[in-house]
């Protein structure tokens, strides 16, 4: 059962009627605009890195349907425990571009106070939990939060993301196993983009599919075409509804492809086959959605260009502002280690401050 691949939008844009989730025009437009905005954001981000204006960037090219389609199945009150390749979610949740770009620059307005590399967002306003670099750690955490919500009796649903590589992590095993045992309201979305940096899926697991790994934890496993936003939406919506109504967790495998190199530090051409890449490039999820919207009569040639332009303009304004902001103050380095800094931390800051005469300008009062 897990082997079957759910697909709704054909390559030509036709939809398999029986499976159409019947999204409204507005919903479709929201999804579409979010996917395009995520793509544009990624293009600008990598460009800034290449220009040496930010230190690092990581794109989600080709995976926009996979993460936007799944996130759209969630209520605003629901929580995300993301990986690092879902830029569309903060956009969908209305996080301003400036807030996103502040994180790239790690400036004084960055929600995480310049403590993490670019794209490791934390957006409490969006119930988007701080992204961690260690692969997989968010998975058990999502299960734990879901256990707490269930015990407390609220109806929040939790969604956590991981890559195909993430399925090999300790936390994947424990996170899914605990969720199965406690029937926790959590949805595990594995974006199977075929690669973990230079390691192909065949080097990651001998399992034919990721979805079938659900069998090991007594939960349903679903496999969907990750470049088909309606299929992704439909599968995750069912999982989210099941979770909310006490039906327990689901593992969803979105079959997609990492069009970009792993990150700005990587060059995929050194280990990846060109034909494979070209074949997947043709399956662009945004173009696929456009063909469907065209048929449905809610999209026309030219819409894309104008949308691209307006988004790019907004992002460029955000970049200008973010770039102009100062670094976090020196004292911020010693904050948030604990709610209140220890005497040792106060002493260490004191010593550093004494050292840095010139930077004294940005020294405020050390909190006690």
């Amino acid at each position, binding site marked *: 059962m897990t082997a079957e691949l759910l697909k709704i939008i054909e390559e030509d844009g036709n939809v398999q009627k029986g499976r159409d989730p019947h999204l409204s025009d507005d919903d479709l437009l929201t999804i579409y605009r979010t996917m395009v905005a995520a793509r544009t954001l990624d293009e600008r981000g990598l460009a800034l890195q290449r220009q040496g204006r930010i230190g690092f960037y990581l794109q989600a090219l080709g995976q926009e349907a996979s993460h936007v389609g799944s996130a759209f199945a969630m209520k605003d009150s629901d929580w995300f425990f993301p990986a690092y390749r879902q830029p569309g979610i903060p956009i969908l949740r209305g996080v301003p571009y400036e807030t996103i770009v502040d994180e790239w620059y790690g400036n004084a307005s960055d929600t995480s106070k310049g403590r993490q590399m670019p794209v490791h967002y*934390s957006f409490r306003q969006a119930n988007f939990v*701080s992204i961690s670099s260690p692969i997989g750690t968010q998975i058990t955490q999502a299960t734990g939060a879901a256990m707490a919500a269930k015990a407390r009796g609220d109806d929040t649903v939790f969604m956590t993301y991981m890559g195909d590589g993430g399925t090999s992590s300790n936390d994947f095993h424990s996170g899914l196993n605990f969720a199965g045992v406690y029937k926790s309201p959590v949805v595990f979305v594995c974006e199977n983009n075929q690669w973990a940096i230079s390691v192909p899926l065949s080097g990651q697991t001998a399992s034919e599919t990721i979805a079938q790994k659900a069998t090991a934890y007594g939960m349903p496993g679903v496999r969907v075409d990750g470049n088909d936003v309606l299929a992704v939406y439909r599968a995750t919506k069912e999982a989210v509804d099941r979770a909310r109504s006490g039906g327990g967790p689901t593992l969803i495998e979105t079959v997609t492809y990492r069009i970009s190199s792993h990150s700005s530090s990587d060059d995929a051409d050194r280990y990846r086959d060109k034909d494979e890449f070209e074949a997947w490039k043709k399956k662009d999820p945004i173009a696929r959605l456009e063909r469907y919207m065209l048929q449905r009569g809610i999209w026309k040639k030219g819409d894309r260009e104008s949308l691209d332009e307006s988004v790019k303009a907004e992002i460029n304004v955000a970049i200008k502002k973010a770039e102009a902001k100062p670094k976090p103050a020196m004292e911020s380095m010693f904050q948030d*280690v604990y709610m209140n800094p220890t005497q040792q931390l106060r002493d260490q800051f004191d010593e550093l401050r004494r050292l840095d005469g010139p930077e004294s300008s940005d020294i405020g009062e050390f909190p006690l």
Partner: protein
Amino acid sequence: MATMTLLEALNDAMRTEMRNDDRVVVFGEDVGKKGGVFGTTANIQDEFGVDRCFDTPLSECGIIGTAVGMAVYGARPIAEIQFLDFIYPAFDQIVSEAAKMRYRSGGEYTCPMVIRSPYGGGIRGGHYHSQSSEAYFCHTPGLKVVIPSTPADAKGLLMSSIRDEDPVMFLEPKRSYRSIKGEVPEGEHVVPLGKGRVVREGTDITVVCYGAMVPTVEKAAVEAEKQGRSIEIIDPRSLVPLDEELILESVRKTGRCVVVYEAPKSCSFGSEIAAIVAEKAIGSLEGPVIRVGGFDTPFPYSLEHLYMPDARRVLQGIEKTYNW
């Protein structure tokens, strides 16, 4: 006031706080029906139900990873790790996640949770049921590390730890669980983290120790007294945050310092105490800072009585610096 074992005091602290705050939940391997392999959580499931006290699958990674998620979402998890020797499958969640959540999220998300675990030797637990690995956690910014040595402190420190807004490693000297009894205030009883305790006043040598080593050092101090050395014993109670001033004041007074602990000698919390003294009390030192620790070997079984610091070894350390 009631006379309790250290174990009973811990159980009392959890029940008291679970009554005060319904966000508090207790879980781990065998903590439910069985009440824990040592009985620390005895009858908690009966009183508070399976939603607030439950058994988990056999995965420390899962126990701590889910605890972090609960804490981030607003619960107050108390996660039990059956033996400290078995905490390592969860090490990533502790040092990479719990310890860093507040910092890396700019304070947007926090991780108020307690990780309880029995540590140390003295129960014939051999290689894998005896280790003292507090140093790993003391070297990890973002974690607090608490070790009680008396029933009253056990209750008061555990209640503070549960109320703390940051992750606390609460390490319990299993050797003292039943062997140490004492008066414990009923109901509300809070001992703040970061305040050490002068166990015994003295003038010649300061001995810093914690957990199950406190009674051992007290015994040694009586012996030393007979030989005319006056020992001051300091129990920091929380290793992080550390009550540096209490230790430094004492060393400035006595001019000599010995640190006693069960963990392997090198690169330990005892090394940290020695380093602090060598940096901040060097002017008052009249002898070397001596570390009486476990040996730099894994924990043995048959020769445990030789591995564990005992009064004889404490006295040896005292003499080393006294007769320097």
